[in-house]
């Protein structure tokens, strides 16, 4: 198993985790979107490689969807949105970069500690893939927690879904239904988000979620 196939998929999945960590400290809107696009491209490569070594042609489709939608369409659309909203300035994070990175590294360690012993029966490749996928998911969660700007929360959510797709692709022979639906749901999710952003724009002239927090329904 420790051949080229293993090395390449290891490299790609590891790259995905690395880029997730990079996403954590991007503090400008445009660079955040660029890094996210890179994230999606690496995901597409990883999935395509899985398709190659598992000889599962439907995975190529998933890879293509990842590449087109998340590598190109969504970053471009978000970039426009950022332009229109005029928020191409520094992203404020709730926690500083240093602590965030430390927590992120901790999460990766946690994911590996949790997944490796448990997936003992599965082959090494699946094991490591899952551990990496869980790291990406957790890093996505972390990003959603530490950012308070709606656009970067959305990016965090999408990087989280990238982790899920990596997991689904790593699970051998997982039926097509799931992958397409995941891709599809990302699209829907994006539409929803888009609508929300526009609505938020209409009402408040800001996409800072912390401003919204003031509108909780329960002031006396």
């Amino acid at each position: 198993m420790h051949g080229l196939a293993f090395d390449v998929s290891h490299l790609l999945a590891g790259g995905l985790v690395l880029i997730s960590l990079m996403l954590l400290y991007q503090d400008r809107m445009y660079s955040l979107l660029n890094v996210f696009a890179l994230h999606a491209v690496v995901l597409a490569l990883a999935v395509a490689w899985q398709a190659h070594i598992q000889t599962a042609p439907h995975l190529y489709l998933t890879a293509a969807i990842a590449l087109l939608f998340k590598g190109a369409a969504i970053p471009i659309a978000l970039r426009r949105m950022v332009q229109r909203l005029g928020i191409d300035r520094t992203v404020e994070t709730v926690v500083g970069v240093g602590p965030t990175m430390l927590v992120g590294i901790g999460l990766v360690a946690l994911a590996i500690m949790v997944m490796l012993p448990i997936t003992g029966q599965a082959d090494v490749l699946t094991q490591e893939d899952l551990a990496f996928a869980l790291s990406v998911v957790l890093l996505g969660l972390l990003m959603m927690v530490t950012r308070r700007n709606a656009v970067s929360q959305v990016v965090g959510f999408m990087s989280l879904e990238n982790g899920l797709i990596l997991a689904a692709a790593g699970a051998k022979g997982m039926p097509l239904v799931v992958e397409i639906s995941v891709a599809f749901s990302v699209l829907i999710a994006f539409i929803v988000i888009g609508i929300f952003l526009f609505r938020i724009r209409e009402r408040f002239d800001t996409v800072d979620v912390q401003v919204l927090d003031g509108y909780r329904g329960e002031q006396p």
Partner: protein
Amino acid sequence: MAAAVLALVASYRLGAAINVLATALTQIAAWVLVFARPEPSLYLHIDDFNIFLIVLNTFVAFTTSVFSASYIAHELATGRLTEGYLRFYHAMYQVLLLAMNLALLANNIGLMWVAIELATLTTVMMVGIYRTPAALEAAWKYFILGSVGIALALFGTILVYLAASPTVGQGLDAMAWTVLVVKAPAFDPALLNLAFVFLLVGYGTKIGLAPLHAWLPDAHAEGPTPISAVLSGLLLNVALYALLRFKILLTANAEALSPGGLMIGMGLVSLIFAALMLYKRRDVKRMFAYSSIEHMGLITLAFGMGGPIASFAGLFHMTMHSLTKSAIFFAVGHISQAKGTQKLAEIGGLTETHPVLGWGLVLGVVAIAGMPPFGIFMSEFLVVTSTFAREPLLAIPLVAGLLTGIGALVLRMQKLAFGRPVGESAPVKASYLPLVVHLAIVLVAGVFLPDALVAWFRAVATLIG
């Protein structure tokens, strides 16, 4: 079964299409729903468990649509919603029903996940429909928490597939319930455990269990009231159903950790937390949302306890809660329209100003608090007795939580329904029928349960284990 699914889809789509095209849509939507209400149990033979929930689901959806018709007419009259939004609203209502029924019918864990995600997204749109800042905040919060929840649930689903695939073989078989349940004893227990933790956290978010409930009160309070009724009465049940399915898998595997402990813990925490929170509410819909958390906690606890009696009680409570809670929301919806506010402080003396609504609310609250003649009393009684029999120590916080909840509800109800009338009040054209029908069923179920139904519940309870 497939035919029934197709029939469901076709007629719902038709309903949505009619909704989109028609201009006077409210009545039509209700009537299409009437005819679209499927004849259950003849075609849908997955198992007793989901047939029961589908009947409940479609019934409540039907009565809610009747309520919604009159509710929406008022919203239109007061200008809170425009016709364009109504069109959107009805289309979404149908999509939501489709998604929920699909989730219940699904025999594939992936498909079920997709359906629940679809249901989540539609409800997000519905919650935000008023477009007030508060509604948008509620929708955004719901969206973020809900999507994180379902993302974790998907990870759990993938892990279940991984646990199953060495035994079942790769491909679609390893995602079908019917296959999974039979083969579950041979699955890798460690993977199943990990999967269940993800699923519990993921679907637990949707059920509204305690540490993850933050979206629920906001979504209930800010969305249109029919949606609050559907959310409380149906969507929470659907998420719980998904979780229970996985619980069956874990119970079937002797080496996996028993899911009961986790579920009892989360259920109990939710129950006590929500019961305490009930005292501090200032918004009437928010208060009943917390009451939903309390009851979902109780139901989760009952299923976590397991065994024929506790599971029976859990099922019964699921039914009674969704009927009663939606009835309460019907009353509350009209009341807040009549009063022009949802604030508890500005509502009072309802039995004088609006006798039918006032007394309807009183009966509903009495029922939801678990007072004797109603069905909820029976199911709560069963839960408490089986807890005493199995885990006496757990019963103490359970009873304390329940009593705290009752205290809060009675306190609020007194002010709402009796006492001096407060605030301005307008007459409202309400549809009392759904309210009356729901309460009547709950009352009858509390006094007398047909033997056939009892046998049915028993069969399902043994299935859940």
